[in-house]
């Protein structure tokens, strides 16, 4: 049975193959405080073992600039060896592409619209 942690902002699940799935909840405005809480919960849940992460965005409304900086900083990506982001609509997909281009996360990061493609890509980092 997979390990699952449900927080007010994100649901974390470690799959049998070791991939961490982080499902961000709907209608969220991510501030810096929330971002720090999300990272702290993730690290505690995974025991700080680096692993690939599948991020599912169910409709985060906005991530504040300071939160974006933190999430792509060394502290924000601790315990993540690679991340695949699933974006469910094309507009957000292109906006996210630009933001990732600017923020330049320090680990392999890619965006997908389909879960199975994202999982195939993450398998290569196991």
């Amino acid at each position, binding site marked *: 049975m997979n390990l699952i942690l449900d927080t007010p902002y994100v649901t974390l699940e470690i799959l049998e193959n070791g991939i961490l799935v982080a499902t961000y909840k709907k*209608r969220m405005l991510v501030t810096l405080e929330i971002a720090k809480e999300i990272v702290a919960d993730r690290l505690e849940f995974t025991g700080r073992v680096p692993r690939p992460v599948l991020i599912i965005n169910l409709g985060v*409304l906005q991530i504040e600039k300071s939160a974006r900086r933190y999430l792509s900083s060394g502290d924000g990506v601790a315990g993540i060896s690679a991340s695949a982001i699933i974006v469910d609509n094309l507009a*957000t997909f292109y906006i996210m592409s630009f*933001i990732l281009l600017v923020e330049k996360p320090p680990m392999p990061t890619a965006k997908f619209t389909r879960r199975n493609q994202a999982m195939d890509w993450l398998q290569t980092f196991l």
Partner: protein
Amino acid sequence: MDNRLRHIHKLLASYSAGDFDRRLPISKHLDETDAVIGGLHMLAEELKAVTISRDYFNNIFNTVSEMALVLTAGGMIEDLNEAVCDRLGYLRDGLIGRRVDVLTEDVRPSLFQQLRRRRGPDGLVRIWNRSFLTAQGEAFPVEITARVLAGSGARGRHGILVTARDIASRLSMENRLLRAMIDAQELERQRLSRDLHDGLGQQLSAVKFLVGAVVKESVSSPLREKLQAANESLVDILGMMREICYNLMPKSLDDFGLVQAVRELAAQTEKAGLMRVVVEEGRGFPTLARALEVDLFRVIQEFMANGIRHGEATHLLVRLEVKGREVEVRLKENGKGFEPALVQGTGMGLRNMHARIKSHDGVFRLESSPGKGTAARISVGIG
């Protein structure tokens, strides 16, 4: 069209115009459209962080006091700031699209060649002493710094940012200093020449007179021969001393003026077998102010010495004439020549010549190219 979509279109139009501060309210529905709006807000924040507006850039570009030009990789002027127009008197549209070499004097290598050849490993080019030409054709001394701009031009081609600092006041101060040094040097030469001539020269003449008298009275033939030899040596020493005095400050310059002093210099140079010198005097060449005569003489002397020392010249033509209210001196030798741009600002001799003429508000123009000898034209107003 959905009202919120209409607002999103307007938001995108604002962002594309560089207004990245515009925001749309997130609705109470908190739906997918709100997520897109939130994404666009994030996009605007990032764009604002990485983009500077054209107005912002223009303000900086036009506020700097140095002249700044953006060139294409091929040397065409793509952009320029207001300082270029203010200082040089050109219209902006008159320069855009033209080669940067239209701004420089007709000196080889061209400015663009220098920019290409002198680029250091850091992509920087520094050219210490070059002149821009104003729209009125006057030379404007500048110090140039250039840097390659990666991806600056259309389609991301490389360009060159050229900044030029006005060094007219610095050069003027340097010239005043140089002038003061030259004046002090001339005074010292004059004093040395006078001391040698009046002091040592007279004493040597007295000794020569005495030795001559003893020679006449001497009955011993071996002693007479030795005294005769001593007397001849004294004649040589007096001749050498007069030559030194002449080089320090030709007496003929004071007694007979510039033309005669130059003729004497020519005769001495020919006698020493150094080069053939032809002196031509135009009709009515006047007696000039002493300071100007000394400076013109020194410039001719320096030009001649350079021709012999560096150019291996064997022939020199000196022409002195009056043209309207100007005296003009033309010098032309047949030496091996050189590339003027490569020696700009390097030799004290050349700088001295420039400074001497400049201090009389005159113009000193030097022309030379490898294998074609060197020529100079000096013109100075005489009031």
